[in-house]
């Protein structure tokens, strides 16, 4: 008598990983082949991938809709610029320090905002971001309301060409780090708990998932990720300004990329970021209408295509993190065949 077995939702992660490695290797070679301007644009894409992946971790896996992630983009960017400008620290060293600071801030903030749930949690995170923005506009050491520039001397004696290439590689590394980190996190025991929390927090708690602790961890990790992206943006644009780095438009972009790419999968945010990157130039020619188009698209996707563009790929996963219930060979065909044809597993078990 055989029993049902729980298996990974895909046979093997290796083909997907091999493909991902090939893409990363090709991207790593690019600074030798493309212009500085293109490298700058691609660095921005890497920042978008990091941001979208982090927002997906929050909402798609943790079930927390935050519209205040710009808080950590701002702290990461400002932290890096402050350390580099006044401390003379290399931006590449200042980046992890600033990102860790974001984690500490987020840990403290979580004790406040976790008192609220759902939409009120979302707005509370926004208030925190506003508070940090307003405080930043009062700090003269970082240029108050008008912001400040990252001193090029902080990069040491790197020539502009190398500086741009190094920042590009940094961005690529961060994108790989956050995607791989999320993948490993979601394949861990905690990841399974998070998936359960997203589907039903009360039920997850009742079977022993430490709901609050898991969510707090995700909140802090997402803040560190957004801080890294913020620092990267500062290295790329060489300028920070409160109304820009603390802008809710960053979060809007994160939300839209994740919804359009596909929430609750590792691949979706990457697809969303790349899709946005590809149509960016055409959209920006439309001035503010591009935000209108993105907003309408986000509403339409939420209502009509909730699994996003990546959902069109069906059950295929480059990065399988879910599980599937494999039933024993049927003795009588009728009842055993049913689980295979009923609700597709990704709605139930596969994140």
């Amino acid at each position: 008598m055989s029993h049902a077995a729980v298996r990974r939702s895909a046979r093997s992660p290796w083909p997907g990983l091999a493909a991902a490695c090939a893409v990363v290797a090709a991207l790593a070679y690019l600074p030798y082949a493309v212009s500085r301007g293109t490298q700058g644009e691609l660095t921005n894409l890497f920042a978008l991938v990091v941001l979208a992946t982090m927002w997906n971790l929050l909402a798609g896996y943790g079930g927390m809709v935050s519209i205040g992630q710009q808080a950590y983009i701002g702290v990461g960017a400002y932290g890096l610029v402050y350390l580099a400008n006044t401390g003379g620290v290399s931006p590449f060293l200042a980046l992890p320090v600033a990102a860790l600071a974001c984690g500490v801030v987020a840990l403290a903030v979580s004790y406040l905002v976790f008192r609220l749930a759902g939409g009120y949690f979302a707005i509370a995170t926004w208030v925190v971001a506003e508070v940090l923005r307003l405080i930043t506009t009062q700090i003269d050491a970082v240029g108050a309301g008008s912001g400040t520039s990252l001193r090029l001397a902080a990069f040491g004696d790197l020539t502009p060409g190398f500086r741009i290439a190094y920042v590009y590689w940094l961005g690529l590394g961060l994108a790989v780090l956050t995607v791989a980190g999320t993948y490993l996190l979601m394949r861990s025991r905690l990841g399974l708990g998070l998936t359960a929390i997203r589907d039903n927090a009360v039920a997850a708690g009742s079977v022993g998932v430490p709901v609050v602790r898991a969510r707090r961890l995700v909140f802090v990790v997402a803040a560190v990720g957004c801080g890294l992206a913020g620092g990267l943006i500062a290295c790329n644009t060489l300028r920070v300004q409160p109304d820009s780095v603390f802008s809710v438009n960053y979060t809007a972009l994160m939300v839209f990329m994740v919804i359009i790419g596909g929430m609750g999968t590792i691949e979706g945010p990457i697809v969303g970021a790349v899709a946005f990157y590809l149509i960016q130039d055409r959209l920006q020619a439309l001035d503010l209408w591009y935000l209108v188009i993105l907003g309408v698209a986000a509403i339409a996707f939420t209502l009509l295509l909730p699994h996003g563009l990546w959902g069109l790929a069906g059950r295929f996963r480059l990065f399988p993190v879910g599980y599937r219930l494999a039933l024993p060979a049927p003795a009588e065909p009728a009842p055993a065949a049913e689980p295979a044809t009923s609700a597709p597993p990704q709605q139930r078990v596969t994140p």
Partner: protein
Amino acid sequence: MEWVNALVQGLLLGGLYALLACGLSLVFGVMRTVNIAHGDLAVFAAFLGLVVVERTGLHPAVSIVAVVPVMAAAGYALQRGLLGPALARGEIAPLLVTFGLAVVLQNVLQELFSADTQSLDSGGFATASLRLTDQLAVGWLPLVTFAVGVGAVAAVQLVLSRTRLGRAMRATSDDPEAAGLMGIDNRHVYGIATAIALATVGLAGVFLGMRTQFSPTLGPLVLIFAFEAVIIGGLGSLWGTLAGGIVLGVAQTIGAQVQPAYGVLAGHLVFLVVLGLRPQGLFPRTVTT
């Protein structure tokens, strides 16, 4: 004396915040969801008032008779067309849809009316004041706004607690399925609740436009103020929302009295302190809704 003045002005400002917040409170009370486009809808209403005033030459206060019904109808359509289907898709979908709507509204307004600040000019009414003592005067407009805020809170509270419709809303809020079994059409009840909420938003938008300058990008701040009033006051209590609005208004005017740049920040900090020390709000559920 200027501190007393700041206190009085803050109290009156609180009436406007309560007016802005009672729709948010109502929607949350009935549907257990938050409309993130709430602030942008209020700014939209202010622009609607502006268009009415410019087209007809009427006094802004009179534009209410056009703005409020339009907003109410828009609320019903919004609920049945967008928010209802989103609610059926779980907890996160309504937040995403209303966030998308907020971004759309804000940028459409900015494309149509530019990013310039506007105001609804209410003529002599805006500057007329009632002298209380030699050094203390309160403007008629803030006073009327406060009265309208209190009136709106009282009206919504009365509808919820005393009418058949309010009973249906409370029943749907408690248990949608059981309410459905009792013959209540939940979708219609949700539609009416959103219509009432947006009617108050329309009212609030016009008074906002008369009291302050507004621009398309003001929406998020309006949402945040309304939200802070709700949380400071305590979830599930409309009178608490009024008190929360007053606390927020006073915090802002006192903060601004210390240093003009600190006004909004002081309001946020009071909110965070309340959230940290008394997350159930100052006046939780004094009246059951």
